[in-house]
């Protein structure tokens, strides 16, 4: 199962390395969203205060595109059905796709945090940096597994582009809340101390564990036709 997962993840990442769809389209999109936020809010003080929320909002919007891309790869020439017909373990497919998605998300988040330092004057101390990295990892695992689960659910159906946001956005709200609060204390927004951010990681961890387990179990029945 783990070998399947590794193969699938390597395959997805290799496709990305060669096609550069995420790097050339989704990451610029996320950066553009950050700039548009700055136009809309138009005040350094406000931007500084809401920077953590904007980073995670831009991440969550980009998740929609990355998930759509991840499953467009599988459904365009019936690759998902071929994998199932070949008897590949669905749990392995789920883990592999989650892993590839998580890797791409981490890269995206690094860019966005960098952008918020440059554009929104966010300030990260050393201990804040540790908190920020832990937050990003936990949030990413949660987002990637829930994205893979719902992406698989909508894969191959008509109207999936419009359906995915409707399904995904309410579910990822806890990640948005937890990650934003934790990032606020990592950035020291409103003078919040770094130590106040750690309790929020509990929420992120529960979410990540819940959806990786549920996703791994439920993915088989979902794609099994």
């Amino acid at each position, binding site marked *: 199962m783990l070998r399947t997962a590794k193969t699938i993840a390597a395959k997805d990442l290799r496709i990305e390395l060669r096609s550069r769809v995420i790097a050339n389209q989704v990451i610029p999109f996320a950066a553009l969203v950050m700039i548009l936020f700055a136009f809309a809010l138009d005040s350094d003080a406000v931007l500084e205060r809401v920077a953590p929320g904007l980073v995670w909002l831009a991440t969550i919007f980009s998740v929609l595109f990355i998930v759509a891309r991840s499953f467009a790869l599988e459904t365009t020439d019936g690759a998902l059905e071929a994998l199932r017909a070949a008897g590949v373990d669905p749990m392995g497919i789920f883990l592999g796709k989650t892993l590839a998605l998580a890797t791409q998300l981490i890269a995206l988040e690094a860019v966005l945090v960098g952008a918020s330092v440059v554009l929104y004057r966010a300030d990260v101390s050393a201990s804040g940096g540790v908190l920020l990295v832990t937050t990003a990892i936990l949030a990413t695992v949660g987002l990637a597994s829930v994205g893979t689960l719902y992406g698989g*659910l909508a894969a191959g159906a*008509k109207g999936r582009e419009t*359906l995915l946001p*409707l399904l995904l956005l*309410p*579910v990822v709200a806890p990640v948005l809340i937890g990650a934003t609060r934790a990032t606020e204390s990592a950035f020291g927004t409103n003078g919040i101390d770094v130590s106040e951010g750690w309790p929020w990681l509990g929420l992120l961890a529960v979410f990540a564990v819940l959806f990786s387990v549920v996703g791994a179990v*439920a993915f088989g*029945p*979902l794609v099994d*036709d």
Partner: protein
Amino acid sequence: MTTRVARDRVTGTPFTRGLGIVTIAGIVWLVIFGLFVTPADVNQGETVRIMYAHVPGAWLAYLAFIVTALSSAMYLWRRTRSLTWDRIAGASAEIGVLFMGISLVTGSLWGRLTWGTFWTWDARLTTTAFLFVTYIGYLAVRNLGGTHHQRARRSAVLALLAVLEIPLVHFSVEIWNSLHQEASVAGNTDVTMDGLMLFTLFLGVIVFTLMYVWMLLHRQRALTLEDMLDDTGLDRALAARRTEAGVS
């Protein structure tokens, strides 16, 4: 033969007709008690009457979503993969969304009168809104297309995930110290509510439950007919055209 077929194609039976009459009578009774017989509240005044629709609406929405989850579990668990369970789940979710909508609208009107605002970003309100959107998403997934069993499997998994939100919504009042009233009846040992008002509230829950069962039976049968139409509609149309053309 034609009359027999026609009779098969309605969703009513003597039982549902009886149930319907009882439900309508119950609604009339509830309206009379809720609007005229019960006294106004000491603190909330006349606005308390909204409660007789608001609280039963919320409870029945929970019940409907739990029924959706249970019948989805039955679909997945039973080897027979009976689509009846799937259709019960779908019908129940539709009615649940309706009741949750009633609850949100009445609650928002009550909030305007009592709190002075239609909406606040309070824990109970926010989580309820999420529940509402989640089940709208569930209904959208049911309409994705594909075979009936594909629909059933997708929506069953989703229903089992969505039902996890209900405890979060219900206990949000306690967890986050919200503005919304705590559950007034369940869980409190000393109920400090006027007897007649309490009775009317329970009456509301019973009437809404009857309404739910009534709608569920009809809707479930209507969904069965829709599925039958999907399965046999084309064949029947072809057969009809063949007869017209005189080919047999």
